[in-house]
């Protein structure tokens, strides 16, 4: 009798274990053939205040012609198609898109997220909220802000370099980020900075340079979630120097007769605030940079210590100038602390931060700054006697 009871229990247990498996069912079970692989995504505010969502969808069959019978034979189809749709909200616009496209949109694969200038000026809080809630969009997508062009236009370009324009755009962002003229901004970085009073969010800038090319250089500066203005490439680099985010780049320095170009190898930057009597009194930026000589326009041998010291000093000045330009613009024009001085205060002078927190924009824009750059030259290149100059 007990044996039977045990058996019954065992069967019940097994059944119970099977049920959850069935419950999970077809959750998110979507074969690759039934989704549209989104390569890039753009958001813009239309004239009448609606949100225009543009998606660039990759057509795998056209990019990689599969087997002879499998793919669609005949003339070559385009590698991507671009579709856009309007809606009151991002979500509505995206879902409304399904009336235009044939398969469900798969957003996780998006390589870039381009935000239109107009939308950015009106504030990105609303759209970020959607991306934060929605599980589909990857937090690691590159966010860039379009200048003088709509995302729609940018996504519709036909690049010669990569079959998928979005991949091409992402490639340019990576390149310029390595050169230090654009800041690579991930969606998750934006989320973090949006809620942080100690640092204002920034994002890369993209412009349309020709029918087939884009240019990603410069920085979009936000203030309270709204686009405040732009930094040019040099200012962007200055900002990156100070923020310890510079990965490399070429800095030109005017010398006696001509210019010298230095390649930044390593750079370490830090920002801090000096506090006097419980009040912030001075913004401090310290940068240690190491560089190689890439080009020495004025010619001549670089074998004396004096020349090198002189060059190091000039390089430091030049870098300092870039930082100053960036800081001044942020203080005077935008009143937006993108450097994160506020974070420093919050961390080391919490009491002081409590007091200035709500009026930080104003206080920040009026503080004097102390910028010190220590540049070092590591190598001068392969030449001892340069061509034409080696008497």
């Amino acid at each position, binding site marked *: 009798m007990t044996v039977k009871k045990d*058996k019954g229990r065992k069967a019940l247990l097994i059944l119970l274990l099977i049920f959850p*498996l069935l419950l*999970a*069912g077809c959750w*998110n*079970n*979507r*074969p*690759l*053939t039934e*989704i549209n*692989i989104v*390569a890039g995504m753009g958001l813009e505010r239309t004239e009448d205040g609606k949100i225009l969502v543009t998606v660039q969808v*990759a057509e*795998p*069959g056209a*990019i*990689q*012609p*599969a*087997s*002879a*019978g*499998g*793919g*669609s034979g005949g003339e070559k189809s385009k590698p991507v198609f671009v579709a856009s749709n309007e809606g009151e909200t991002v979500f509505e616009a995206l879902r409304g898109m399904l009336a235009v496209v044939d398969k469900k949109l*798969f957003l*996780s*694969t998006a*390589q870039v997220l381009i935000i239109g200038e107009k939308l950015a000026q009106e504030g990105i809080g609303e759209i970020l909220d959607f991306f934060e809630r929605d599980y589909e969009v*990857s937090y690691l997508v590159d966010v860039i802000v379009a200048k003088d062009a709509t995302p729609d236009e940018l996504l519709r370009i036909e690049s010669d370099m990569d079959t*998928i324009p979005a*991949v091409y755009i992402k490639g340019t962002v990576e390149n310029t980020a390595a050169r230090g003229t654009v800041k690579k901004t991930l969606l998750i970085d934006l989320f973090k900075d949006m809620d942080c009073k100690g640092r204002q969010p920034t994002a890369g800038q993209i412009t349309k340079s020709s029918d087939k090319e884009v240019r990603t250089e410069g920085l979009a500066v936000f203030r309270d979630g709204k686009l405040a203005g732009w930094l040019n490439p040099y200012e962007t680099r200055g900002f990156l120097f100070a923020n310890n985010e510079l990965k490399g780049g070429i800095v030109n320095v005017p010398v006696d007769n001509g210019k010298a170009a230095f390649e930044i190898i390593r750079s370490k930057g830090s920002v801090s605030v000096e506090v006097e009597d419980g009040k912030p009194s001075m913004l401090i930026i310290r940068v240690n940079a190491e560089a190689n000589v890439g080009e020495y326009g004025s010619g001549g041998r670089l074998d004396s210590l004096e020349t090198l010291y002189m060059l190091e000093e000039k390089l430091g000045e030049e870098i300092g100038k870039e930082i100053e330009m960036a800081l001044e613009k942020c203080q005077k024009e935008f009143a937006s602390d993108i450097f994160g001085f506020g974070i420093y205060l919050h961390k080391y002078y919490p009491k002081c931060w409590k007091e200035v927190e709500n009026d930080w924009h104003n206080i920040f824009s009026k503080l004097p700054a102390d910028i010190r750059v220590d540049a070092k030259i590591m190598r001068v290149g392969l030449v001892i006697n340069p061509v034409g100059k080696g008497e």
Partner: protein
Amino acid sequence: MFGRIRERYREAKHKFANVRVDASSYGPIPGKIKAVQTRLDEIFSQCNDLVIKEISCGKDGRIKILVVHIEGIVDRRLLNQDVIHPILDYLPSVQSEDSSSIYQQLSKCIVISSDIKEVHEMWQAVNFIVSGDAVIFIDGEDRALVVGVKSPEGRQVEEPDTETSIRGSREGFVENLPTNMVLIRKRIKNPDLKMEIMQLGERTKTDICICYIKGLANEEIVREVKERLGKINTDAILDTGIIEQYIADNRLTLFPLVGNSEKCDKLAGKLLEGRVAIICDGTPYVLTVPYLFIESIQATDDYFDHAFFASFMRLLRLLALLTSNLLPALYVALVVFHHTVIPFKLMITLAASQQGIPFPPFIEALLMIIAFELLREAGVRMPRPIGQALSIVGAIVLGEASVAAGIASNLMVIIVAITAVCSFVVPPLIPATMLIRFVFLAAANFLGFLGIMVAVVAVFTHLCTLRSFGIPYLAPFSPLTAHDLKDSLIMVPIWAMITRPKILRQQENVRGVKGSKRQEVDKGRDSQKG
């Protein structure tokens, strides 16, 4: 389900026990030669291969001698030389009427064979006759003489087809039990190598030899082997495969709990590790117990090659084992569920290959795997000369044509091909892998990675519960026996493998024997240096 199977099995066993031929009903050997002949005629009715040779002797030829054997399985030359000739030569000189003295003389001096036994029961005599010995009955005696004149004929010793190796002996076992015993004895010249013969199978009377090295093999395991063999209750043992199923600890598992091999050197190695071998007459496959999971990724060559290389190969085999089990499942899970983990470019490739395929990936994978298994099975079953045609059909029709026709994606063909190649790397686990692969595949299709994990955990749990003759199947990993890890996935060089696997619990754990020649040589060398 299993409960019902077990019940049925019990019922059948019960029935079988009732109808079994009672061998002892033959009774003792009758004293009269006429009666013996009648009994034999009864027992061997319609057996035209039975030969009864009648020889008369004694005064007036009153005492008759019967030499009984079965045609073909006795060595004719040996029979004539050892039995018939001596008797015929001896006969004229016999004048005695006393049958027992004739019997004595026959057994002591006449029959010149080293293999002579005496039997009293008829069933014993019959047993010897059917297993190829000659039996001599003498009028007036209630006992018989058994002379071993079995013919050693059979296949020559050749390289086994199933287990080939680049290095190492090319000798494989044959179907003949004595030959196999010699092949082992040749490698281990030691009286401690014990070979105990017993007969199994009520009808087939198959000779089984339990082989182990006394002092190395765990006595308990030897006893257990004997006990389990003794419990086998069947009328036919045709192959060690049958014995394997009877003596395995868990009879329903897909994983092999008893090892088998055709290679003599491999078997010698196993014996020297302290394992017990079971050799069966009529099959070249010799069983070894206990069998652990790790043995399926060990190869004989490993011990003859450089340890680094061997270790790498073992890791590779493990990788192949995992791949052959999981690759189709992982692919399906990726394509159906987890698009987010695929890099963008790879996703384009995947999507491109999937385009235009009318089936979901699961069905596609299932079709291709079944097609492959069919090919494999056909390759095994069909006559050799047709092999070429089959490989053409396999490669062209199933591979290229199915892709061209848009039934399967080219990526799926690659995946199934890799899976197939990997499954051949670990031959002992082919049956288990083949079936478990479908389980993984189904799990992947329903639950993605989660499903695969559930299935993997289930399989591992099952593996952990298995025992082979009391030894945990996953040893030395679970339970962790650090001592035995030296010969697991990573193998230390053979000269550093000083001790035998601990998990088998041998009596003598160190490989070198004290005072052995090698140690003496080492000592000599040292003293020379000094």
